[in-house]
């Protein structure tokens, strides 16, 4: 009984996050416009040229007119975005859990590797106590928003590229990063870029880890988007995702209750058809062929990976496989996010929010 109550709140809260992610700059654009932008941005394979022009227009119009009031406006937006009681407060409270999850998954992987005595590029991910477990890892935080995940990863030693298609988000993230000198004290490196995943792939970028958190459900062509993200992962690297499942319960809570009845989020924030169930997501990822990576990408991989190149070629028919799916929820009283206990039925665990790890061959 406790679960349904908890889940109810989870979804209500969660839908709020979704809204905020898309519209944390909604002061400037109506949500409809933003949806348009989103669709253009992420729908690459079909409309590459139009995407380019739209992103380009967006950036140039913003930047050419930048001035003092603009700075003030961004500071204000940044303040709001990062406020612990602000519009994306649930994203902030969820962040520690996401980081723990990534650490946990990587250290588990590393332990297995060490046990088997295999060579890997991840020896640096050592004990959980290590203060910089992500040292020497290049991580992409796609859809970085105000940078809440990116900053955490940098503090743990990673070289992070925080990418967001919204210029405002990138500016918010940059402004906020100035508040912490430790983001620049190394070994972690922080970069923000206003760029899409597709553009990054086009430029031949690749990463040890790609994080696409709370973003797939806002993308109009999730399959294409996932393929792009997958293509950005180096051979042997990891893809981390978090999203909402498509279940009757999540429909009732996120669409019916949150949007239509209680109006906690604006009508139309969520598109139920964009939600993906864990098994669907798994299918999509495990059916991605490995051929969307051309040779130029492999050349860029550093020497460690070159050693593994033969391994990579052997398994090159498939991109990779899912190594973990974990259901998460938020306690409505304490506002803390948690991973479900193992005794909770799997079906219920994965009914709403879940985290997923995929590993590239």
């Amino acid at each position, binding site marked *: 009984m406790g679960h349904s109550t908890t889940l109810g709140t989870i979804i209500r809260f969660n839908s709020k996050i979704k809204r905020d992610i898309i519209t944390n700059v909604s002061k400037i654009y109506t949500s409809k416009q933003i949806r348009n932008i989103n669709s253009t941005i992420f729908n690459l394979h079909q409309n590459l040229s139009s995407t380019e022009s739209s992103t380009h227009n967006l950036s140039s119009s913003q930047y050419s007119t930048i001035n003092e009031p603009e700075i003030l406006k961004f500071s204000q937006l940044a303040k709001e975005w990062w406020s*612990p009681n602000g519009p994306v407060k649930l994203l902030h409270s969820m962040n520690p859990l996401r980081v723990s999850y990534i650490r946990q998954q990587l250290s588990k992987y590393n332990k297995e590797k060490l046990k088997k005595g295999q060579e890997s590029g991840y020896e640096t991910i050592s004990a959980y106590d290590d203060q910089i477990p992500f040292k020497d890892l290049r991580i992409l935080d796609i859809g970085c928003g105000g940078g809440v995940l990116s900053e955490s990863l940098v503090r743990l030693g990673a070289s992070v590229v925080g990418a967001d298609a919204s210029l405002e988000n990138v500016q918010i993230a940059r402004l906020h990063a100035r508040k912490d000198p430790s983001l620049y004290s190394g070994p972690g490196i922080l970069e923000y870029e206003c760029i899409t995943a597709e553009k990054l792939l086009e430029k031949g970028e690749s990463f040890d880890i790609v994080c696409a958190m709370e973003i797939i459900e806002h993308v109009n062509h999730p399959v294409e988007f996932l393929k792009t993200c997958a293509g950005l992962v180096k051979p042997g690297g990891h893809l981390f995702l978090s999203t909402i499942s498509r279940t009757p319960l999540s429909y009732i809570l996120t669409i019916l209750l949150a949007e239509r009845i209680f109006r906690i989020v604006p009508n139309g924030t969520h598109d139920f058809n964009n939600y993906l169930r864990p098994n669907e997501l798994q299918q999509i990822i495990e059916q991605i062929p490995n051929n969307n990576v051309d040779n130029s990408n492999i050349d860029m991989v550093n020497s460690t990976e070159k050693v593994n190149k033969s391994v990579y070629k052997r398994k090159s028919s498939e991109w990779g496989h899912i190594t973990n799916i974990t259901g998460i929820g938020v306690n409505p009283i304490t506002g803390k996010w948690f991973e479900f206990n193992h005794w909770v039925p799997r079906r219920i665990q994965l009914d709403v929010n879940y985290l997923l790890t995929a590993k590239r061959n």
Partner: protein
Amino acid sequence: MSLTRINLFNQTKQKFRYTTSLLFNIRHLATVTQDHNIKKRDVFNNSFMIDKNLYDIAIIGGGITGNALACALVNSQKTKSRRIALIEFNNMSNIREWKPPHLQFSNRVSSLTPRSIQFFKDIGVWENINHERIRPYKDIQVWDGISDARIRFNSDDISINKNAEAIAWIIENNNIQHAILTKLAQYKDSNIDFLENTSVKRIMFDDVNYENEQFDLSDWPSLELSNGKVLKTRLLIGADGINSVVRSFANIESLGWDYNARAVVATLQVEPQVENATAWQRFLPTGPIAMLPLNNRFSSMVWSTTPTLASKICTLPSNNFIHLVNAAFRLRIADLEYLYSQLENSDIEFAKEFEWRQSIEKKPGIGNEIFPPLVLDVQEKSRAEFPLKMRNAESYVKERIALIGDAAHTIHPLAGQGLNQGLADVQSLVKVIEHGVVTGQDLGNIQLLKNYSSDRYLSNLIMLGAVDKLHKLFGNDFAPIVFMRSLGLQVINNLEPVKSEIIKYAMGIE
């Protein structure tokens, strides 16, 4: 292409320090973003933080809780590389070189619960304690001054885990402080700056413009110190006692009241005991008087009473004082009140008064085992008095600020819980900071710090409330209330499971 250049920077950045670039100056964002170029970046290392007097954690107040916090943070693998400042008004060299005279004890003692002891063991402080000067007690006797109803707790009777060989330990505060400072000194290359002999003149959010240095640290608290330095800190911790300046800077109100009572403390020489291992407490209508064992010949006393009586008790000639203390544990309230009225009468001999009054009162069959050892002498200059208060801050945390120990809450000493609560705060806060480090959070962020307050606030409040109620309940001499509380004591005394739960709670065993 350009992004891969980061890798090159990554490899060489340890070796070179680039000249300051204005990457994060927003005026330049336009160019940066438009051509997606990664600009030459300034790589900072810890020397930047050191140059600018920037700290991750600044602890105000080097009392036991403040020092224990610093020690626990340096001890933890997860937090040891954080840059910590500890600011203490006093000169600590006396305590650092603490060499206590034999058979003399400080009047400032604390009762440490097994939970607190375990914490000190965990952070490596316990091994530096002078074990000759601590006394575990297994037995507590508490009785009602009016009705003589009595409750007795013994750790042997109670089914608790076998690790707890005592209910609590009586220890001099200096002994704890010395052990912590010794432990801190053992960390050779720790990142902690111990600024003693230093006071905080002002705490503020300053407008020092770090913009040219790329940073905006306007929401980091600045501390102006008496040595002229100005520090900035990511997280400011108030361990500065009941009149906390950190708390007033944070604009956090402190709720509670002053008891119309003061506590008199003293170090007593008592009749030599085979095993002085019982804590005694008698509830008088004016407040409880307690005797706590220090060793087989010495005990420590805390007597909470009315302010007028307290000052008289403090100045009474020692010879009279010891008999008054004996009387306070053994005589009827009416006899005691007579003695109170004679405190300024120099003609009366307290020794004689006590002897004959006790001889009438003594009932056959009742031995000395229900009373604490007789007091023979009081250590010179060991008598002191202090006001008694009950306080709880309306909140323990704010953005970039956390309060611990007496800065957060102050309790009546009758149950010996004050320091133990403070140490529980420290344990909780260290866990929270560790969690923050592990998950890559900004250690000053309120979302993180709230974990500390949600962990400690309610449990401190319950303890404060319970002790306050006890004080009020026993401060009453209205007959029906005396009857009910005496009945209650006797009933509880015969209900082992209830007694067991009470004592576990007092011992900090959840």
